[in-house]
């Protein structure tokens, strides 16, 4: 742990256009995504629609298509796209020296 940041591993451990999950007690599962242009985003691993595990969706652009009913969720904001309405909490995340760090307080808030 570095300050308010939790070190969760190497960015290379996340497949490009894919994601990995992190479990945090009290915060459920966090999905950490890596996009085609090598941006990293972290979201609570629950679709705002019916709780689908977003980590298992297809990542395209800066969105992920939920594996259950194909809602598209913007990775940066957690907002459902298009006609669908809903939002998944996002967690501040950064990459430092190849390590992925997620914000601890953000993680707790996402759980709240």
């Amino acid at each position, binding site marked *: 742990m570095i300050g308010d940041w939790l070190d969760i591993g190497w960015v290379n451990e996340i497949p490009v256009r894919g994601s*990995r*999950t992190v479990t945090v007690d009290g915060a459920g599962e966090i999905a950490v995504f890596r996009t085609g242009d090598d941006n990293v985003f972290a979201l609570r691993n629950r679709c705002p629609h019916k*709780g689908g595990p977003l980590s298992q969706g297809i990542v395209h652009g800066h969105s992920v298509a939920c594996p259950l009913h194909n809602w598209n969720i913007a990775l940066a904001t957690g907002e459902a796209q298009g006609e669908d309405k809903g939002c998944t909490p996002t967690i501040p995340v950064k990459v430092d020296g190849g390590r992925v760090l997620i914000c601890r307080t953000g993680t707790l808030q996402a759980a709240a």
Partner: protein
Amino acid sequence: MDFQDYRAGEHAADGPDTGPASPREHLVVIGNGMAGCRAVEELLARDAGRYRVTIFGAEPHVNYNRIMLSPVLAGEKSFDEIVINTADWYRENGIDLIVSDPVIAIDRAARTVTSRSGRVVAYDRLLIATGSDPFIIPVPGYDLPGVISFRDMKDVDTMVAAADAKNNGGGGEAIVIGGGLLGLEAAHGLSLRGMKVTVLHLPGTLMERQLDEAAGWLLKTALEARGQTILTGADTAEIFGQGKVEGVRLKDGREIPASLVVMAVGIRPSVALAREAGLEVGRGIKVDDHMVTSDPAILAVGECVEHDGQVYGLVAPLWDMCRSLADGLTGKVNPYRGSVTSTKLKVSGIDVFSAGDFSGAGAGCEDIVLRDASRGVYKRLVLQDDRIVGAVLYGDTGDGSWYFDLLRKGESVADLRDLLIFGQAFASGGGQADPKAAVAALSDDAEICGCNGVSKGQVVSCIAKGAHSLDAVRATCKASASCGSCTGLVETLLAITLGDDVQSGPKTMCKCTSFTHDDVRREIIAQGMKSIPEVMQKLHWGTPDGCASCRPALNYYLLCALPGDYVDDQQSRFVNERLHANIQKDGTYSVVPRMWGGLTNPRELRAIADVVEKYEAPMVKVTGGQRLDIFGIKKEDLPAVWADLNAAGMVSGHAYGKALRTVKTCVGSEWCRFGTQDSTGLGVRLEKMSWGSWMPHKFKIAVSGCPRNCAEATIKDFGVVCVDSGYELHVAGNGGIHVRATDLLCRVSTEQQVLDYCAAYIQLYREEARYLERTAPWVERVGIDYVKQRIVEDEVGREALCARFLYSQSFSQDDPWAARAEGGEREQHAHMAQFKPVKAEEMA
């Protein structure tokens, strides 16, 4: 003459309802142009019987689309094509149209108008829609024959005649004075008609009222490249000529010869008539929010008016005005609040868009600029307080309507700022890269078709009323019927409104591309493409890395085209295929081991029972395909479950895949008293041949031992019904939402033939169906005769298909579970990290 006299005259509208018994109010319109006629259209749409209408037009025509004069001049349209309302329309609506007879006086006290030919017509309400007069700079020689403006059809005729004269040995040179929108469109048309054109523009920048210097320079360069001479800073001193135009002399002494001079230096509201009648006039005829002038009986609309200090020289505001006006005339209050305008240059091949204030002179104005020299693209947005106040786009104007919408709504763009300049697709995030979403997000009053002033709301309602194709929309509300630059928008609205019911060309694969599935498949093979990024690059994908619908399709097409060579892209697979298990509604997975032909044994049953207990699977179920499905397995437990099942010799059942699922069988001749052949054994052989193969969609097989058909083979993708003489092969059945019984493909006599035909059929389906198209819709689309021809009649072809299938099977028949059970692709299952606990106080 009084009112009665007029009514008795040749233009009297007849019919009893105009008589004194039912005194309909008489609305007289001066000006048969864009605004006058539109006002009447709006009025008719609200209350057709309310007014008796008479329209005076100075021109000899029915109402036409003035902005389309430029394409007429350029030879891209004919006059007939730009007529808005035909003579029949006037007749059918009981409108009295008087052409070639301008009104020359209004008597407000008597409530009459007088025309040049001497007609006196009484009105209850008068509508002035006289438009503008072209501004003529009063240099010496301005009145020489051959000096014209660009305003109406007569001007176009003159220009066309001048250009034609050249071919008969006449003059071939034209000068356009004024490098604004109108001047450049005139220059473009004349040069397309073969004249040598020089544009004289006083300011240093072309279209300086719409463009900044950079964009003006790009435009100038592009026009020069097309052979026009553009002189900026060119101050006209004199137009010279003996009896007719011979050229123009500039203040710096230069002389440019020409047989035609078009003055397009600006317009002025045509207010003379109103002023003489004593109406209040500023720059234009002053009107209130209901388009009423200082005389309550007289309204005015269009370019001739001044509203709230503004005069307009474009059509979009007219439509707004006409709506308020027609509402007012039919007793509804709908105040006009002014318009923000945008402009486009209608010169084919040169895209210029401008809106709002681009000067960036206001307090706190900031610019965002994008230049891409090699593409000839220039974009500039002017922001003030995080709101767009101006936009100039050159070369790539696709986002014009989006910027314009943001500008009109005055929405804050603070959140989008970083990406704003790259356009809507980027700025709104990946999901919004969907052009449909963009159009769906436009407000109802957003303008779709500038030429005809049609809003999104109007297009949608016309679609809702039954215009289900582009042509139908064009015919009903005219959107996209003129210059066509909004065709894409209209098509998108059709798609949004109707979903799959749009009657149009073949559907594109997805929103990321304009290619259809079939195009993409063909191009992959024709161009020998080998990876998803390559396909996206070569076929100009509109998104950075596709979407959840095209990526799985491309992955499949490449896999099918390049067996053994193509490296599967896991991230382009739906979760079920990526995790080799079925995702269920609670996010857990279900696992179906293969039970060949539906057969099992104690070892397998024991292994399944053990797994159920060990992983506390809450349910086991026999599937419709005669397999056992174990439910409620957690993602991280999947590899262990598979390891246990593998240990008992079981492999993945691909119940999750676009692949062969199961082969259902009955017991056939081995046990059943009716059985004619070994249906179970054949089923096992078919399954061993075809398992593991990826297909466009799921694929099911069944084999029944006799026509009693206990394995329900006639609702399967491939069904075999054993008969005494051999085997009936059935294809394209479906037990899903649309139950479909199979078509009979043929009869064969040996088991080997069954296997060969099955392999060939699967391969044909794999190679030619669209991704996510099951065999039933595929066969319905291509026709069973086609399939018979390929599989039954074409023996060589069948063998080749069969060989290709078996070749690709040599790479794909391995158990995906085994590799994972041994720890392959661990990241698909294991958490990246686990933290316990993370409570703030405990971490401190």
